[in-house]
């Protein structure tokens, strides 16, 4: 099984997010294969939650499609198990699902099914002791966020407790594809001094943005809503979605490859 760190070893990393089970587990499998073909270095698999406060309309809708289709944590791990292990996976979900399963059980399930890292948008380091221990025990990376509002001292402390990579939030707000890039994204990248890889997410949708972010000093980019949008537009023709996603992913990958 690959580690999160493997994603950053060769080159700048392209991290792709999709919501597992959106619109079906089969679709997820197809899309994962396409992402890998197109050069994704790490896949974030969303485990959908009923109340995703950190997500914009695109990923909210994906979560709802997936839940409606019957996705749950048990099925999630079953699905993950079947995916090719040529790249590492992280699970992205909200804390209540982890808490409810039990942090130890959840971490163990991750380890056993091929998940190398856990990303929890509503779990700041202050509340992460319990899950942190579970991750340590099962040799998983617990990914923390740094946001444009994070103060310098806080950045220092988050770096201290991080492993795998640090998730830099490109802008205020929630997930969702956008065309522009804010100046403060670049200055945020430059503010975070660490050897741990820095990947930037929230609102990245095109190669131009991706390139700029890498040029500003990031070690990876995270693309979610742009990919999920393609699924949303093609829920009844998943092959079309797969095609579009593969094309986009290739272009993004090119954008960040010097």
């Amino acid at each position: 099984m690959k580690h999160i760190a493997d994603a950053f070893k060769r080159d700048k990393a392209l991290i792709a997010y999709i919501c597992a089970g959106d619109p079906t587990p089969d679709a997820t499998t197809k899309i994962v294969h396409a992402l890998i073909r197109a050069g994704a270095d790490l896949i974030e698999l969303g485990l959908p939650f009923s109340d995703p406060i950190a997500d914009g309309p695109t990923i909210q809708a994906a979560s709802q499609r997936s839940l409606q289709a019957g996705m749950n944590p048990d099925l999630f791990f079953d699905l993950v198990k079947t995916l090719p292990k040529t790249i590492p996976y992280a699970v992205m979900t909200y804390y209540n699902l982890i808490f409810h399963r039990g942090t130890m059980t959840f971490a163990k399930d991750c380890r056993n099914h091929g998940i190398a890292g856990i990303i929890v948008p509503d779990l700041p380091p202050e509340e992460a002791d319990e899950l942190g221990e579970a991750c340590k025990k099962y040799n998983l990376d617990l990914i923390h966020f740094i946001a444009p509002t994070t103060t310098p001292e806080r950045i220092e402390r988050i770096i201290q407790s991080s492993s795998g990579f640090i998730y830099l939030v490109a802008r205020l707000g929630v997930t969702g594809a956008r065309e522009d890039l804010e100046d403060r994204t670049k200055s945020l990248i430059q503010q975070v001094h660490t050897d741990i890889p820095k990947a930037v997410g929230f609102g990245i949708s095109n190669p131009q943005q991706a390139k700029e972010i890498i040029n500003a000093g990031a070690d990876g980019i995270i693309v979610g809503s742009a990919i999920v949008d393609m699924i949303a537009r093609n829920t009844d023709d998943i092959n079309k979605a797969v095609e579009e996603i593969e094309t986009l992913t290739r272009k993004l990958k090119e954008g960040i490859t010097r």
Partner: protein
Amino acid sequence: MENNKKSKFGKYGGQFVPEVLMPALYELEESYKKYKEDPQFIAELHDYRSNFAGRPTPLYHARRLSKEYGITVYLKREDLVHGGAHKLNNTIGQTLLAKYMGKKRIIAETGAGQHGTAAAMAASSIGIPSEIYMGAKDIKRQEMNVYRMKLLGAKVHTVTSGSQTLKDAINEAMRDWATNVETTFYVLGSIVGPHPYPAMVHDFQSIIGNEAKAQILEKEGRLPDSIIACTGGGSNAMGIFHPFLNEDVELYAIEAGGSGLKTTKTAALHSASLCVGEDGVLHGARTKILQDKYGQILESSSIAPGLDYAGVGPELSRLVDCGRVIADNIQDFEALEAFHELSQLEGIIPALESSHAVAYLKKADDLGDLVIINVSGRGDKDLNTVMDRGI
């Protein structure tokens, strides 16, 4: 990063929010700590409470209700607060704090529209723009409150995600806050959410209990045997309970039993999180919540829109666990009976929320001889609902 002990009520509470909001929570905590000791803030808060909200509210000896139940019943009259519910106690406090903190706008979520109206009222009188998030379903069933908010100058956002009710409105407000956190103050409507909200709202609402304590001592020369309050998020309950926590007074938190304590695949037929909810994390805090076996949040249900919420304040979860507060619930039909009973016996039309507390008079085994019921709001907003069910 060390665990933030002060943000907890035992194991409950905490700050389960996106990183982007964490600095704002610290800023809020600092500012609140500073201004709550600031003489000018205190004076201004007192002025708005007295002259805008209409405090103190009376403690009314309900003679005919007392006779009916053979005990002495007092009603704490939060129904007389400007806007029609205790909600303004809190929105004035938070909105004033927003002004002192230099924020440029406030946002709020609302279910029934009571908190939204109270937030809009505070915002216009204090002179700061307000935007209110409300589920599409709630907007349909609470047309008048939507109109009130607009009249008051608030912008009302229709939330079409999820179950299109309060829980989704909170989600959406949090998303707005994450987007505009630097200029925006999120005015939360109950003792829920991440620290410092539960503690702060608790403080702003404690005026209810502080008044009630002085009033009952003046009128009866002793403390009551029990206090009953309806409980959605729990702000009116904690507001009246707080000064009695260390006294020999039984405290009853009455939740919405809806049409019974049953659950479908995605929805509870009730809102009784203290009674039958399980430990979990929702809207920034660990507390008792209604969830399925995987931890997905259930839709809740109640005839009283203000109680219709899948979570509850972490402080109440703690107090119920340790036995200091007794949680029970009242079904829709019992609340309706109490709504009619209080209207006819005392000339006070209670909110359907408050009717749950009133109904507990009948259901309770032994409340002692002297009881205070917190009438958290007036029922004018509920007339259509009750009308639809037949008088």
